[in-house]
């Protein structure tokens, strides 16, 4: 028996319904996507440093470009599908238009690569320059599944570490060498604090596998790589407590590997540091504080 309708579905009424349905779906997807990008609740957390704001500016520039591209493409698709659905018309016989190809290729190159060049500054401020001189230095050692932050202590000197001294069970996660007097007063802790408006340099290391130190509000993320010592720097402008989450798969505790960065006013920071050092002295069995210490 001969088939009544050819296989490509040429009934105009049928195709109008499908075309309009596709178009409406595309429009809805576009609208909802844009809405939720504009809706503040699901935006990045507030940026708390100048570098972070640079990153956000670049994100916004990219969002404008991609947003326009996204909206234009989806709507053009929706339009074409409705306007050129089969209504019995003859399709235009055209193999293309070289001038249009050249124009839109050139425009895309300029926009995309231009955007790429624009991104340089936000990258450069973190990676093409080192920390300001006089930055507060804190050593960060990642491990399965914790963060260890080390301050040089009252003497201002980093103590020597030895791999053979590392013992999680013995309370010496980064392997401070007991034979080195400078190591005795080093402060090692699972969370850390910094003063506001002060350049901080983090010296990133790892004991075992690759982890990644990430603080959302600083727009900071850096892998800690076995065998490498990597430095990053930031200057936080707003006091508060900010969560640190590991950002590179490191094993079954990857999701538990969390910590806090606390940004304090200078006065609060000094107080906090003095408390930590006092606790350390107690631990070391000393009662009197050392004479006037160099400012940390």
């Amino acid at each position, binding site marked *: 028996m001969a088939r009544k309708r050819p296989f490509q*579905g040429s009934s105009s009424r049928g195709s109008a319904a499908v075309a309009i349905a596709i178009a409406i779906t595309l429009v809805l997807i576009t609208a909802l996507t844009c809405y939720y990008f504009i809706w503040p609740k699901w935006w990045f957390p507030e940026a708390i440093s100048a570098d972070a704001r640079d990153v956000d500016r670049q994100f916004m520039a990219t969002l404008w470009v991609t947003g326009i*591209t*996204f909206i234009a493409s989806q709507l053009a698709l929706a339009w074409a599908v409705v306007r050129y659905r089969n209504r019995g018309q003859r399709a235009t016989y*055209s193999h293309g238009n070289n001038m249009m190809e050249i124009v839109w290729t050139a425009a895309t190159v300029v926009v995309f690569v231009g955007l790429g060049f624009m991104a340089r500054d936000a*990258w450069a401020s973190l990676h093409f320059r080192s920390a300001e001189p006089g930055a507060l230095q804190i050593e960060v050692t990642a491990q399965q599944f914790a963060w260890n932050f080390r301050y040089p202590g009252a003497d201002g000197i980093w103590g020597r570490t030895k791999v053979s001294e590392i013992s999680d069970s013995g309370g010496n996660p980064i392997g401070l060498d007991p034979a080195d007097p400078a190591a005795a007063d080093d402060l090692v802790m699972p969370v850390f604090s910094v003063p506001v408006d002060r350049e901080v340099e983090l010296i990133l290391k790892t004991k075992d596998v690759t982890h990644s130190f990430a603080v959302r509000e600083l727009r900071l993320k850096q892998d800690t790589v076995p065998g490498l010592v990597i430095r990053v720097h930031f200057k936080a402008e707003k006091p508060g407590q900010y969560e640190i989450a590991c950002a590179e798969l490191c094993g079954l505790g990857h999701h538990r590997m969390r910590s806090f960065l606390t940004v304090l006013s200078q006065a609060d920071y000094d107080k906090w540091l003095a408390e930590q050092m006092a606790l350390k002295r107690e631990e070391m069995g000393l009662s009197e504080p050392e004479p006037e210490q160099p400012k940390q």
Partner: protein
Amino acid sequence: MTTQAHEAHAHGHAHAAPTGFIRKWIFSLDHKVIGIQYYLLALVAVFVGMFLSLYMRINLVWPNMELPLVGTMTPEKYLALLTMHGTIMVFFVLTTAPQSGFGNYFLPIQIGAADMAFPVLNMLSFWFTFVSFAIMLAAFFVEGGAPISGWTGYAPLSAVGEIAGPGLGMGQTLWVVSIVFFCAASLMGALNFITTLIDLRVKGLTLMRMPLTCWAWFVTAVLGLLAFGVLAAAGILLLLDRHAGTSFFIPGGLVISDKLIPHSGGSPLLWQHLFWFFGHPEVYIAILPGMGVASHVLSTFARKPIFGYRAMVFAMCAIGIIGFGVWGHHMFQSGMNPYTAFAFSLLTMGIGVPSAIKTFNWLGTLWGGQIRFTTAMMFAIGFVSLFVSGGVDGLFLAQPSVDRGLHDTYWVVAHFHLIMGVAAIFGIFSATYFWFPKMFGRMLNETLGKIHFWITFIGVYCIFMPMHYSGMQGQMRRYPDSTGIGFLSELQPIQQFITYAAFVTLGAQLLFLLNFVWSLWRGERAPMNPWRATTLEWIIPSPPPHDNFAGNVPSVYRGPYEFSVPDQAEDFLPQHLTPAEVGAQNGKK
């Protein structure tokens, strides 16, 4: 007899149709059977992969649920599911179905050949893939289970063995061995595709008259030829680190669980460079065939030549070439040289250009067309929409500074799923609905197909669009459980929405499976050319005979997309019709 004729004649004999079940269906040399074998392997793999991801989604929302086959979820089980989901989907679905499945079946036919250049090699490449898949699945069943280091298998986590976590013992070894087998299979396949395309094209089929599907398979094969050898090398180095005490990737002084790891001097970044040098071309391998299919299907059902054929070819070649220069964008935060990172970034922004050209040209193909909404066409239209979505969000990741806020978050998960896990899959679906009649001699049910399309199209947007928002909020990848971190536990409503959408979308795939299986036996019988298409596969019976053209080798007289040519009786001009035959056809009307 001349030597030439003797060769040709002898080879013709060697290609007589096989008899017997084993020669015909198991160890077949016929590219069509091999193509179907690959496709079925991918079909099994995709359901395994979806099942794994469903368990992942359930865990993210209902972590304490007892699940069949897995029991209560633990972090290591979740990470094992995650690793295997990614590996199985990328290798055994996206690298297999579009290229080895459809490419094997249709490349020879679309160029007028009776088979691939090297049928025995073709058969071997399938069976190596099969062995690879078997070894990969075996990782689930060994002591310690499947590996937990992600589909990217970063060293040293993947290199130091079980001390770093469960599954990193035998499971990880099997994973690496499976990958090495897969590399061998892919290299054999790539070699075959390129040789076939260069040397077996029928008379009149110049390169610029090839269907864009053939161009896509060609560029994909070139990428595979150059990339898989590097992955094989990386895998062998990893195996040596794991089992022979070498230190290619493991530096000294590592202490895990208070034990000193006895290696020294290796570089974890070396693994990343080798892996991603392969890994980036790999994702273009996954998407290019889908682009070829989209071009082909859009043109066919808009009844209009593809807009800018040359530009499309140029764009695919540009994507292939530049694709070898952008791998560093996976490593911006890895500790790599920041100046090199910036260079990679510029190239990555640049590779967005050929993709944009293709998108403009797809829209241009629809413009002025006479669009018929078959299921294949709807998936092709969906492909364009999803390609745009998944493509533009990549522009953010391509900039290293912006990437600082987004790396390893769900934004990345959204990006690669939209572009690979959805757009490429839509390419596979479009190809399936388009070519099923030719392959099996029966039509897929269009109503079921359309329902499949609608639920899937809306469903995937519901699943993957919200991941952008949770990613911006800092939702981390590869976290079995986010509730321990304050700002992440607030995002649970998004997680729930995504999981519900996943359930529904997965259900629609069962509908597809039902349609597929049912239509194999009860589908409406397919004519030779149900879609009134122009390329050479539509001039042979559905399904084709063993040697495709049954001795009547066509010649080609025009390009592949001659639709709606003015002053013609028909709205399509098949490639094989001689001008005289066209004239005769016009004369009748």
